């Protein structure tokens, strides 16, 4: 085997490795186990290298790249537009880098070498950038814009290549155009990065607002309880006087009825058995009042200690979101009910919210999606719940039939 082939074969390994780095950076963890992933990349490497070394056809190479990238994107868990975006973004970037070096450096070995290693460096940068900012909540439309941008990138390069391949003399015009294209790309991504930044700030503000709402619900609850307690204290003296009289007169029936009335007053105070955890009770009471005002019947069982090491804000967010969804669904049907339970058994924390609903679900990408119209601002409730459950390495289960919907969560290691 000639040295030339070995050299080119080795450089292709660098190239494939760069592809792997940038794909995992953008698309995250692979869906399948490491063996399948490795063999997929290996297969792609073999096909690509064969075409490159023995067939030496640019168009075939390009086609192989684009199909290969798209196929590799299926190794990862993500939606279709992100897969398409990744394919075109990576292809466009590598083409720009490669053509630039091919025409800047006359020595084809050195050119190839530099192109592949700069591509690798580029991949690490992209991967670092994506991971550092943890870009998960970017709306799909941004991906679409960049994909279109990259498609045009590639189109420009292809068209120019086609034109310049027909020229006999070497021309410095072409690398100049590529270089300008590179600058344009950089500017575009800087602007894009800023746009993402402002979008993330908006998300943060929205999160802070949610936390504020939670705290406010808590404070309202405390305020309300204090007021009612003061009122009851005040009434107590008045309530005790008739009792003395009824006992003296031995009017047992009236006494019984009188006591039942007082007990009823007590049960109206705390709307249901509270958990004793302040943040949780705040949100439970506020959702209870909201649900009641929409005509929903509640049934609950709560038994939990207040010494859990689980962050009570997390519990409040979980219950708040699940109850919001439950209220939204139950209010749409005629028989409105919600049953929820928070209990500690056998060393685990069990949470469940069950509600009546109309049987219709919107499912996208194997996940339940919002039915509300304003898609970019809704649908984050269940996502937040899933994120929190994942944080504690717990289990989440969703079951439903035509008339009821149930979410159950188990959290382990609660102390």
């Amino acid at each position, binding site marked *: 085997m000639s040295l030339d082939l070995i050299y080119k074969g080795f450089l292709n390994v660098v190239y494939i490795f760069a592809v792997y780095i940038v794909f995992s950076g953008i698309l995250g963890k692979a869906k399948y186990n490491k063996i399948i992933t490795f063999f997929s990349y290996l297969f792609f490497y073999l096909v690509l290298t064969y075409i490159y070394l023995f067939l030496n056809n640019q168009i075939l190479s390009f086609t192989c790249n684009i199909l290969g990238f798209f196929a590799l994107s299926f190794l990862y868990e993500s939606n279709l537009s992100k897969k398409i975006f990744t394919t075109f973004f990576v292809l466009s970037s590598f083409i720009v880098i490669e053509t630039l070096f091919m025409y800047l450096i006359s020595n084809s070995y050195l050119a190839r070498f530099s192109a592949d290693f700069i591509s690798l460096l580029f991949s690490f940068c992209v991967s670092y950038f994506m991971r550092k900012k943890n870009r998960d909540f970017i709306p799909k439309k941004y991906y679409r814009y960049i994909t279109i941008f990259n498609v045009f990138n590639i189109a420009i390069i292809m068209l120019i290549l086609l034109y310049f391949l027909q020229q006999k003399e070497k021309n410095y015009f072409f690398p100049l155009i590529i270089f300008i294209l590179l600058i344009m790309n950089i500017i575009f991504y800087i602007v894009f990065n800023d746009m993402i930044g402002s979008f993330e700030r908006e998300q943060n503000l929205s999160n802070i607002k949610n936390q504020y709402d939670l705290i406010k619900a808590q404070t309202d609850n405390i305020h309300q309880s204090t007021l009612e307690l003061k009122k009851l204290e005040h009434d107590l003296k008045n309530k005790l006087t008739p009792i003395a009289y009824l006992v003296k007169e031995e009017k047992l029936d009236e006494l019984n009825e009188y006591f039942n009335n007082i007990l009823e007053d007590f049960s109206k105070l705390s709307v249901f*058995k509270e958990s*004793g955890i302040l943040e949780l009770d705040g949100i439970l009471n506020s959702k209870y009042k909201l649900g009641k005002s929409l005509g929903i019947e509640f049934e609950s069982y709560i*038994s939990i*200690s207040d010494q859990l090491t689980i962050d009570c804000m997390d519990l409040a967010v979980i219950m708040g979101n699940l109850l919001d969804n439950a209220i939204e669904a139950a209010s749409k049907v005629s028989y409105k009910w919600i049953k929820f339970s928070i209990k500690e058994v056998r060393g685990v924390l069990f949470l469940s919210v069950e509600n009546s609903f109309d049987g219709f679900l919107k499912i996208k990408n194997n996940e339940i999606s919002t039915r509300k119209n304003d898609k970019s601002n809704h649908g984050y409730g269940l996502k937040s719940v899933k994120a929190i459950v994942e944080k504690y390495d717990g*289990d989440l289960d969703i079951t439903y039939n035509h008339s009821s919907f149930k979410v159950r969560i*188990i959290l382990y290691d609660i102390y």
Partner: protein
Amino acid sequence: MKVAICDDDVAVCDIIEDILCAYSKKNNVFIDVCQFYKVESLIQSIEDGNSFNLIYQDIEFPNMTGIDFGEFLRVRTEDFFTDVVFISGANSYDRQLFSFQPLYFISKPFNNDEIIKSLELSLKKLDNNSRIFTYKKSGKTVFVPLNEIMFFESISREILIQTISTKDLFYESLNNLEQSLNNSSFLRVHNSYIVNTRFIKSINKSVIILENDFEISISRKYKDNILEFVEGII
């Protein structure tokens, strides 16, 4: 069924006893009720040899509390068969209470339904007590009370049956056993394990710990079973 009610408030004891008697008459179930006003008296009664199937235990007392009783029953005498229902006037519970594996938690003021619900749960468990498990070994049939079996483990083509006091091996497949058991107390948690839920002390993501600190592995394939079990307790 023998029931004990332990609360320093006589009125509470009377109310619960009335509810139990009404249920007993209506459903033709024999219920024998004893009242105690101090934890010390209940403990003394048990030490004297009395045993109960179900105990309604108040938590708040001036001297020995419901927690002390839980420690006596579960830790000192290691009795995990007696069902305990904790009654409390407070909002949240001390975490120690959960380690005593109560059947139910009731808060004051309570209503009749909660007492009845806990009673029926206990009656259901009692019903299970009399069941016997049989298997064949060397041509002979062996009888074991279901209540004493902690778990079944499949080892190649045999099954290891672990009871409170002994263990034994017999030929059977775990799948067949699972079908023939058909008992809500027994749960399949792994390809090789069926566990008696009465002996579960705590559950982990990958392992179940039994009363005698035995560890049973869980496989994700059966996590739904565990979810149903946790949901169904109480």
